[in-house]
């Protein structure tokens, strides 16, 4: 133990490109002036990841997630700052670092297009110096876990997206790396495929103790898998910590959603400590309420007003046929943070 799996400090990555000019003699002018424009994709990111953690690395499009992961894998050299993975500087020691990590870029396969999946795996095994029995064992296990049997002999170009992603995950984990980077591993997959991949990631983390850094725009992935999240935007860390704490801290309210017995009940009386939020909602099935039934939410802070008190006050005031207490979903929390650009202290 001791040293963390990943340690990043003040990580910065800038991309510099020549300016593309337009207008007459554009090519000539850009040749002569050599004007350049710099983008700061990652702007002073610091964090550590302990061995065995499963961390969600989240942020809106263009936040700098993939760029960070590329620096952690050694494919990109940081402009400044330091990064250490398992005690090594990835870009200085790229090939050695490669042996200890598995990487899946969901947008891009690492498998060989014309080869059957099985041949791709065999090549990976050889590349990473896996001996035959270990390879057979690993392949057997992943074939079962990810249900690969049906398409092991299909060339990669003939696989569906979900099948390909399962193949990519297997290729990344075949040699048992202690650290796994997943950059959007569920992008474009249907619910069943997503669930299967989540299960696999959870098992890998729990059973093998693999450290996982997960990037995704699917917040269900995050809720199912991550206890800790790192939120970044514009290359800066907005939040680093517990998922539940983030939710509590950022959106400290709860909704009591009720279906009223009568359709037009006029203006509603909000009990002390609550506010009425009227958004278009429909009654839940099986309550006997008509489709036109009025559904409203009473929003309150559970730390100030206990939930039972709100329920009692609302039901005393209104005749209701159904009620439900809901916490704001993660999507709303994240959307709020992205749009305001910071986390409330």
């Amino acid at each position, binding site marked *: 133990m001791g040293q963390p799996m990943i340690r990043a400090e003040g990580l910065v990555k800038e*991309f510099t490109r020549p300016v593309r000019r337009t207008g007459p003699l554009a090519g000539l002018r850009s040749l002569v002036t050599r004007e350049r424009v710099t983008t700061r994709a990652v702007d002073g990111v610091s964090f550590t990841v302990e061995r065995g953690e499963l961390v969600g690395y989240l942020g809106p499009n263009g936040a700098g997630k993939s760029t960070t992961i590329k620096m952690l894998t*050694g494919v990109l050299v940081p402009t400044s700052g330091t990064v250490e993975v398992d005690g090594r500087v990835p870009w200085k020691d790229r090939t*050695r670092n*490669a042996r200890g990590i598995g990487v899946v870029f969901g947008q891009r396969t690492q498998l060989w297009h014309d080869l059957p999946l099985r*041949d791709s795996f065999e090549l990976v095994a*050889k590349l*990473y110096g896996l001996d035959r029995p270990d390879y057979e064992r690993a392949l057997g296990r992943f074939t079962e876990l990810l249900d690969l049997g049906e398409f092991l002999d299909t060339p990669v170009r003939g696989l569906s997206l979900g099948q390909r992603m399962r193949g990519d995950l297997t290729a990344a984990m075949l040699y048992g790396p202690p650290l796994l980077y997943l950059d959007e591993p569920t992008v474009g997959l249907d619910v069943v495929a997503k669930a299967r991949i989540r299960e696999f990631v959870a098992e890998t983390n729990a059973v093998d103790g693999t450290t996982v850094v997960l990037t995704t725009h699917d917040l269900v992935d995050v809720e199912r898998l991550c206890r800790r999240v790192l939120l970044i935007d514009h290359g800066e860390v907005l939040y680093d910590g517990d998922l539940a704490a983030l939710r509590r801290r950022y959106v400290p309210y709860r909704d009591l959603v009720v279906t009223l017995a009568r359709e037009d009940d006029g203006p509603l009386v909000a009990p002390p400590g609550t506010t009425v939020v009227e958004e278009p909602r429909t009654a839940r099935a099986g309550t006997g309420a008509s489709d036109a039934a009025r559904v409203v939410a009473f929003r309150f802070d559970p730390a100030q007003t206990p939930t039972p008190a709100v329920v009692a006050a609302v039901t005393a005031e209104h005749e209701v046929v159904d009620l439900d207490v809901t916490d704001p979903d993660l999507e709303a929390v994240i959307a709020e943070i992205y749009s305001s650009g910071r986390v409330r202290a």
Partner: protein
Amino acid sequence: MTSAAQVVALVAIGRQAVRSALAVRSEVLVSAVAVLVRVVLVVLVWRAVYAGVDEVSGVDGPTAVAYAVLGAVFTNVLNPFWRSSLEMRVRQGRIAVDLLRPVGLVPQTLAQQVGTTAAAVPRCVLAVLLALAIGALRAPAGGALGLLAFVVSTALGIAVALLCNLLVAMTAFWTLEVGGALMVYRAVAQFASGALIPLWFMPGWLRGTLEHLPFQAQVFTPLSVYFGALGGGDLAAALAVQALWVVLLALLAQLVWSRALHRVVVQGG
């Protein structure tokens, strides 16, 4: 990774390249037919050229015909229609993945090229057998020792060709529109290597120029050895020049590669 493990990995990549090259049956068939047809055509042409003539520039008919056959076979292997894996992977943006392997990208690429070259061996054997059958080819000059010299020279020639091809493929790191440049390169390489016309027939100034380029080391040198055109001292010198090209091109490739890598890891491709 130990160097033994690296070798295992590279061999695996090479074998995979062989399998990829032989995967599509129609493609294999077409390229085999192409080289056979080419052999027949050059034999017909050169026999016609030599009809009623004993010698041209001190080269007799059978030698010229046999040279043309071997030239066709060599160029078929060494200057393939461009399908460099490196150039394709740069264009598809897959280079990041390749950099994440525990084996260097240049060794990976070379192993792949060697594999592709090896996959061409069966069709070359066929072409040679055909040439023997129609009496267009004879055994190398100089007996067993001559054969050995030819094999060594061929190996060096292949090394020179692979390094040249690697250098050209690496231009993909700077410009994505390599297609046209590659066509030109291929045409120049074929001509300058002496695969189409032996350097023997070329005017002095042209031959003098071509002798300073790496291309003649790919085809013309091994074929000169095959036909015993080089005596003891000249033979040693020719092999030394080939070896020198291998070293120079390898150093150049390393330099270009370090610039290319810098582009990828610092500027992001």
